[in-house]
């Protein structure tokens, strides 16, 4: 796998986090540079724990993080990092009695934008970015799930962060909103380091320059989306009949069968997609995948 990152902005070394006996992060290594990186992995892979450590809301038990040249283990550097960080948590909470404007305004104050005129300008800017400008005076409790997710994204964009950490940002967005989100994030990635976790391989294919796959608390793939698809090269087949073995397969819209693994009887080779590489990676031993 291609682990080379130019102009590394975030370096994670042997990061470990345990909850009781369960090891959620198991000596995870990772390098990030400017641009958009997608973080894929099944539930329980350790994605959210890794993102929370990077966002400085959770301390690892062992290992090191250097983000934007700063060490979050040191209090002063942690605060300095938070000044340059935008974070969308997996489960962003809200004050339901606040309006959209008030909530963004509140987070802007937490980000030390204390001058009112400058702060309100910044709030209007981010609300416009996520297409919520016309909802500025709406109470948060009256927003739909998708609108709340956009508000959560808006607060992450406040104060022009250099490092954006987005935990499942496309959850709850309809297809049109997802397209807008992709356009916004790809634009942000031109000048920033963006790390986003997702279950959607289409999101990764559409906007990420790099992709990281986690499984069992470890990073099992780090490279380009093309590299992830290439993991499945020569192992994706299309056939009229289902395979007889234990290979992973599913029926496609045209009634044929797409098989990952050994060639089924009458199977023709197919062009591998990111999803194929991802599925094979999760089903294969780490050494084989690497």
């Amino acid at each position, binding site marked *: 796998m291609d682990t080379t990152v130019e102009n590394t902005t975030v370096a994670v070394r042997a990061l470990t986090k345990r909850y009781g006996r369960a090891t959620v992060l198991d000596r995870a290594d990772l390098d990030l540079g400017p641009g958009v990186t997608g973080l894929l992995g099944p539930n329980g892979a350790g994605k959210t724990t890794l993102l929370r450590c990077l966002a*400085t809301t959770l*301390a690892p038990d062992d290992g090191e993080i250097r983000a934007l040249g700063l060490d979050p283990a040191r209090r002063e550097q942690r*605060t300095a990092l938070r000044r340059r960080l935008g974070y969308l948590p997996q489960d962003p*909470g809200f004050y339901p009695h606040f309006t959209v404007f008030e909530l963004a305004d*509140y987070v802007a104050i937490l980000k030390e934008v204390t001058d009112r005129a400058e702060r309100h300008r910044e709030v209007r800017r981010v609300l416009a970015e996520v297409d919520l400008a016309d909802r500025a005076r709406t109470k948060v409790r009256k927003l739909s799930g998708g609108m709340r997710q956009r508000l959560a994204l808006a607060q992450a964009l406040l104060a022009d962060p250099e490092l954006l950490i987005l935990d499942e940002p496309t959850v709850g967005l309809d297809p049109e909103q997802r397209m807008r989100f992709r356009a916004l994030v790809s634009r942000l990635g031109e000048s920033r380091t963006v790390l986003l976790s997702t279950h959607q391989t289409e999101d990764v294919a559409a906007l990420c320059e790099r992709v990281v796959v986690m499984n069992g608390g470890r990073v099992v793939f780090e490279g380009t989306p093309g590299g992830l698809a290439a993991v499945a090269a020569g192992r994706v087949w299309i056939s009229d009949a289902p395979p007889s073995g234990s290979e992973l397969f599913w029926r496609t819209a045209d009634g044929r069968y797409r098989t990952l693994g050994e060639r089924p009887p009458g199977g023709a080779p197919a062009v591998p997609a990111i999803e194929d590489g991802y599925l094979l990676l999760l089903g294969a031993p780490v050494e084989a995948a690497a």
Partner: protein
Amino acid sequence: MSTTWHLPDELTQRYAAGRLAPAQVMSVEAHLARCGRCRAAVPYEQEWLAESWERVADVVDRPALRLSERILHRLGVPEHVARLLSATPSLSRAWLAALTAVLAFAVVSARLAPGQEDVLLAFLLVAPVLPVAGVAAAYGRHVDPVHETQAATPMSGPRLFLLRAVTVLAVALGLTGGATLLFPGPLGLSAAWLLPALALGLGLLALSGRLSPLLAGAVLVTGWFGAALVCHAVLHDRFLPFHPAAQALYGAATLALLPLVYLRRRRLAPGEPRWTRL
């Protein structure tokens, strides 16, 4: 319509910069409405237009100040700090209403049944707990729905916690103090809750570097009621926790905790992640 006089350049510049009094603005705009030459002289840069529009938009979008923010603003608290405090869970309308109801109930009960020591004792035992409960519910993952988001901001940790804790303490002490004044009987006895409240409140702040505020509050409240129970059941004196000797003890604890909390103020960060190498 033509006009025989024109705006001085200096007046036009001040109008464009927004530095005129409202009456002058009206006068200038009345003139501009009928004088093309002066209209052409008003700077009409995109930047100026954008700034003017922004000022208008800000007036339209600016959220109205909440009652708590208006009160804090009147007390000289900066606008952005008042907004921060308005989100404190234990300064919410529901919380304050519950606190006021508890205190009003105590005062009314005491007035309806004068001479009843039980009501006074209940008030004295509960009053020191109210500020502690308010501080415990002011900050943390379990009480604040926005905690995870704000934990990744530079204001999180000791700054925000202390800001909220001190405000909640002041509000709770103020409300309870007001109730004390309405209580029948000698003021000295009904105000005997104050020193234990201060000691418990400062004890909570001191413990918050190591425990979550909720847990620290639970420990202190349990200890307080436990001590009261011992006084009643073992020492057979229900009012022992409010005797002068006990008050001296609370005073000493308060004096000892004040500098401790001040010295550890940068480490009072409930919920702040602890890196093992620190």
